[in-house]
Every structure is written in structure tokens, then in C-alpha cells.
């Protein structure tokens, strides 16, 4: 375990030669940092009274501005991004903008005369995390200096004992969010370990991190589940002493894979901006173990609630996470009970997305839902208003989606934008007039039946013209390079349409003379000719395009036995 400093000492903690951060390969000591903090404090003290808002992609600069603000007696509002809409919302709080905002009042501490530094008050309102509230409007979550200090000193007690005091903290998450702030800034400050200023974006950077000293990786599932197999992690594995993941559950497969490649069991932290860290585990199949100082319980509604010294008061805090407790006090998470989605660890308010879409002036009604496929993503089911209909007719579906996505990108990070869009005449409703999530979800399922373009009833047969669109579910994965309509789908369709046209007995009894001569490709139309002979209980089908027959055969039915 490393030497522990108190945040109350602010930038006075640690000797001048103690390493603080690596900025583009260059070591910054606590001595240099102290001077920068004193200059930053002078710049911030010159501002009219009030809080400041900070956005920067450089964790060292964040560490200077934060301490500078605290020594200047200012609270720091931390938004998760600097999109125009977020910037406007932060500005509306009457705070000074510092760092990488369009129109920032202060961008650098320059060579300001250093302010004399004095110890800080533990009650100092240190930061306010500015995040998606469940109502859709961002909320301000205040944290006192003591809350931040206590939490990371407790975590050092749990995790720090096995980590070298000189290990460098490298990260793939931003310090603008609470998890990054705690693990990239506060933990290094209280434990005396250095941190990397630059945020990693690619696995290659991890594999080739300069130097040979010990490392700790602070990461998230978005990064850890996408580590390419081609990247050689041998050197990293030899140096890395711990991997932390937070922001959402790490898929078991990703966790095992990382362990196989590096020998390291990822330590997952479960928490939120409101509560800080709640629990941890180092195996993806294990229940969550409460962190020291955190008392957890279940509400009568099955929601997780907690009490801890890292919360503003001693009352139970009820989360929106549904849970189940084990006999030993550990718990399993069963998903959220509100309309906040976690997309790649970003908290996205579905209500806020819907409100923004309606404000576009093109949308009458909308439901945004979470779709879980290869990737968790959002789908928007939209009923356009007259202006929207006009725009769809004039510029087309793709252009309309582009307009809507760009509009949302004003206030929401791109990762959180809907990737699936459905424009419908009306949202599906139950007989009670309620739009259920399940019904909306069905709009995003790939169709299993082709659209019937024309029906021609002849004397002894019925001829259907079918649209073989590429979005049919059957084309998915049925020959990746060259999709063809599977034979089994052709049989299903024949039976499906046969049943809608003829009164056929319920049970399938067999097939006869079935031939697949020419493949059916996506795109275009085919005709399906169906004949039913009541005396033989036999359905004949044939798929063709013009003179060319794709397939044909007979299917025999009978009574169920």
C-alpha cells in the first residue's frame, strides 16, 4: 500500500520530487504541479464570485484546474461532454467556462503570479457532476472534498495493498465523469501514484506504453470487450498490476478472454455519479460485494438502496437498479427500472432523446427503446408530422435520419444517438391505448414474411407476387458473401400463404417432388403459384420469375394424430 495523502492538504501534499503525472512521455513532479496550481488559483480568483465549469481532455490540466479552483474557493462543475447544447446548459448555470469550451473565459494559467496555497476545508463543495437525470434534464450532483477523499482512501485500503506505490495509472475513460475523476485524479493524489495525462483510445497504445514500470489500467467495457486479438499484450501483462472496469457490466466472455491473455482478473466496480462506488467483483459470474463503508439493502419494490459516508447524508439512497440479494449479503443486478439507458457506459436519457426529437418540428410522436443485438443500441420509432412527411417525401429516408441525428448530436454524445429508425403511421397500441415496449420492439425485428405486392386468383390456382427485400430475416447470415433465400423459408412461406388462402388440415404429413432449381436472390420480385387439391389434401407450390422456375413441390397435410 502506498503512502496516503489527505485531499485536505490540496496541492501542498507530497514532496517536490514525487512524480505526479506523465504528459506526452514527460514526467511532471508534484513541485511543478504545485506551481501550476498556484498560478491557476490566481487566474480563477480573478473571476467574479461563483462556480466554474471545466472541460478538458488532458487529465493533468484537469488536475491543475481542479486544485486551482479548490484553492481559490471555487466549486467545479464537470459536464461529460462539450457539445454546443451541453455548453449552453452549463453557461445557463452562471458559471465561468474554463478549458476546452467554445467561448471559454479561461483556457490557460500561463505565467500568472502564483497564489499562496493554504490547506482546504473538508466541507468544501468540491465538484458537481453534471449528468443525465432520469427526467431528461441534466442534474447537478454535488460532492464535498471529504466525500471524494474518504471514498478513494477506503478503496486504496481494499485494492491498493497489492499495487506498487509507483505504479502509473493509465486510463481509457475520461476524468469528466465521476469514475474517471475518482480513479484518474483523486486516487493518484491520495495514494501518491503517478497518472498518465493522455487518455488511451487504442489497444496498441496499451501494448506499447513507454517505459517498463508497473501500470494500472482504469477502463470500461467499451474498451475491454474490443481488444483485438492481433495486439500483443505480453509486455502489458508483465507490467500491469490491476485492471479496473466500471460504467456497466463487463460481458463474461470479455472478462475471461482478458484473463486468458494477461492473467489478470478485471476488478469491476459498480456505482453511479450519485452514489460513487457501491460494490465490486473480480469474476463476471459472481454477485457484487459491497465496498467498505457501504451498507446495501433491498426496498420492498426490489430496488437496491444504500447508505454510506460517500453520500451527502445518512438517509437511505434508493437507486433505479432492480436487484436480488444472496444470503451472504452480496447482490445480483437485474436491470434498471427507469428510462435511463446505458449505451457503452454513457448514461442516455430516453425521455430527453424523445423530447429533443419532438422539438425538431418534424416529429409528432416518438418512442425510443433499447435494442440488444451484437451491440446495445437505440431504436427510434417515429410518427412524423406534416412537415416531417413532406421532408421524407422530398429528401428521402436517409437524409431525414441524417438531419435528426445531427440535431440530437447538438446535445448528446454520438455513441448515444439512435442507430435504428422506423417511420410509422402510428405507434402500436394495446386495446387499452397503451404503447408497450414489446410492441415497439417488434417494429425493429427483421420481417419474416415478404410483402405481397399483388394477388391474382385463377380458376385452379392463386398467384402471389412477392417482394424479396434484402431486409428479410432469412438473408441474415445465410451465406455472408452472397445471400440467397433458404429453401426452408420458401417452404414456410408456401404453407403460410397456403393457410391464408385455403382451408387445409392442421398437420404437416410430408413433402413430395420438391426441387430447388435456381436460387432466389435479395431484391426484385418473384411469383408464388399455389394450388390446393382438397381430395388429396395436397398443396402444390412453385416460385418463379418470368419463365424461370426457382423451386417447386407438393406438401401433404392431414388431421393431427
Amino acid at each position, binding site marked *: 500500500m502506498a503512502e496516503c495523502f489527505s485531499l485536505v492538504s490540496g496541492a501542498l501534499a507530497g514532496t517536490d520530487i514525487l512524480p505526479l503525472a506523465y504528459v506526452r512521455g514527460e514526467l511532471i513532479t508534484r513541485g511543478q504541479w504545485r506551481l501550476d496550481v498556484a498560478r491557476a488559483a490566481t487566474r480563477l480568483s480573478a473571476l467574479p464570485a461563483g462556480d466554474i465549469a471545466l472541460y478538458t481532455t488532458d487529465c493533468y490540466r484537469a488536475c491543475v484546474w481542479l486544485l486551482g479552483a479548490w484553492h481559490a474557493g471555487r466549486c467545479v462543475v464537470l459536464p461529460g461532454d462539450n457539445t454546443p447544447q451541453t455548453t449552453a446548459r452549463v453557461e445557463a448555470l452562471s458559471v465561468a467556462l474554463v478549458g476546452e469550451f467554445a467561448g471559454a473565459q479561461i483556457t490557460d494559467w500561463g505565467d500568472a503570479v502564483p497564489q499562496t496555497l493554504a490547506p482546504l476545508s473538508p466541507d468544501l463543495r468540491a465538484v458537481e457532476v453534471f449528468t443525465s437525470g432520469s427526467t431528461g434534464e441534466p442534474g447537478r450532483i454535488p460532492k464535498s472534498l471529504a466525500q471524494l477523499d474518504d471514498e478513494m482512501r477506503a478503496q486504496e485500503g481494499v485494492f491498493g495493498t497489492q499495487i506498487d506505490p509507483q505504479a502509473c495509472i493509465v486510463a481509457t475513460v475520461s476524468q469528466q465523469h465521476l469514475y474517471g475523476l475518482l480513479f484518474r485524479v483523486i486516487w493518484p493524489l491520495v495514494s501518491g501514484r503517478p497518472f498518465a495525462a493522455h487518455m488511451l483510445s487504442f489497444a496498441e497504445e496499451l501494448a506499447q506504453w513507454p517505459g517498463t514500470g508497473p501500470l494500472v489500467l482504469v477502463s470500461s467495457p*467499451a474498451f475491454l470487450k474490443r481488444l483485438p486479438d492481433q495486439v500483443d499484450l505480453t509486455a502489458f501483462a508483465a507490467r500491469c498490476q490491476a485492471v479496473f472496469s466500471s460504467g456497466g457490466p463487463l460481458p463474461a466472455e470479455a472478462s475471461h478472454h482478458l484473463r486468458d491473455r494477461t492473467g489478470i482478473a478485471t476488478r469491476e466496480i459498480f456505482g453511479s455519479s450519485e452514489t460513487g462506488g457501491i460494490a465490486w467483483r473480480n469474476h463476471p459470474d459472481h454477485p457484487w460485494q459491497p465496498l467498505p463503508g457501504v451498507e446495501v439493502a433491498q426496498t420492498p419494490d426490489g430496488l437496491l438502496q444504500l447508505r454510506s459516508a460517500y453520500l451527502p447524508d445518512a438517509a437511505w439512497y434508493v437507486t433505479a437498479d432492480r436487484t436480488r440479494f444472496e444470503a451472504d449479503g452480496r447482490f445480483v443486478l437485474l436491470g434498471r427500472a427507469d428510462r435511463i439507458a446505458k449505451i457503452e457506459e454513457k448514461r442516455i436519457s430516453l425521455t430527453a432523446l424523445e423530447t429533443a426529437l419532438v422539438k425538431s418540428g418534424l416529429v409528432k410522436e416518438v418512442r425510443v427503446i433499447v435494442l440488444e443485438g451484437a451491440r446495445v443500441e437505440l431504436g427510434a420509432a417515429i410518427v412524423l408530422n406534416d412537415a416531417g412527411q413532406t421532408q421524407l417525401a422530398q429528401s428521402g429516408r*436517409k437524409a431525414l435520419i441524417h438531419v435528426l441525428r445531427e440535431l440530437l448530436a447538438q446535445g448528446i454524445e454520438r455513441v448515444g444517438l439512435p442507430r435504428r429508425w422506423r417511420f410509422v403511421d402510428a405507434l402500436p397500441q394495446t386495446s387499452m391505448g397503451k404503447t408497450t415496449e414489446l410492441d415497439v420492439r417488434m417494429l425493429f425485428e427483421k420481417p419474416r414474411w415478404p410483402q405481397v405486392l399483388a394477388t391474382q386468383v385463377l380458376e385452379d390456382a392463386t398467384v402471389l407476387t412477392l417482394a424479396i427485400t434484402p431486409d428479410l430475416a432469412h438473408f441474415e447470415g445465410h451465406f455472408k458473401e452472397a445471400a440467397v433465400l433458404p429453401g426452408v423459408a420458401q417452404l414456410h412461406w408456401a404453407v403460410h400463404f397456403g393457410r391464408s388462402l385455403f382451408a387445409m388440415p392442421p398437420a404437416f404429413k410430408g413433402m413430395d417432388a420438391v426441387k430447388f432449381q435456381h436460387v432466389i436472390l435479395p431484391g426484385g420480385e418473384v411469383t408464388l403459384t399455389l394450388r390446393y387439391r382438397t381430395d388429396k389434401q395436397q398443396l402444390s407450390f412453385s416460385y418463379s420469375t418470368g419463365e424461370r422456375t426457382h423451386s417447386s413441390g407438393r406438401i401433404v397435410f392431414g388431421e393431427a394424430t
Partner: protein
Amino acid sequence: MDPLIAEIKVLIIESLNLEEMTPDDIDADAPLFVDGLGLDSIDALELGVALQKKYGLSFAADSEETRRHFASVSALAAFVGSHRTK
């Protein structure tokens, strides 16, 4: 057109599961991220994995350099063409 450019366009659409796109919709010289095709940071990671798998590539540790390779389909094709091992 360079067949590699066409191939990479298909790889982008398939690996990122872009519902609305056809290869013709992707301008080979337009930015892939934000302003052009509108891909996000997760798309960048997934596309990186798909490219490494298909072409046996490795990217440099220098993230600025990697970002330049991901600037457009043309830039990617040039990088893949000179660095592929399969």
C-alpha cells in the same frame, strides 16, 4: 475504382451493421467520423478490430497516426494496401 475501396466500404457496412447504408452512399474521400459518415468512437474500435481480423494488420501505438489512417475510406485503403499480411 480501387477494388480495395469497394471491399472496405462493404466491411464498414457489415461490421458496423449500418442499416441505412449501401457502398454507393459512402464517399471514399469524406471523413468517416462525425461530419461525414457520422461514425462514433465505438464504431472506430469495432472497425479497427474488423480490419485487423480481415487483413492481419496492426496499428501503431501513436494514436494521432492511427487517426490519420481512419480519416476516410481512401486513407484506410492506402494503409491496408501497404500493411496487409493477408
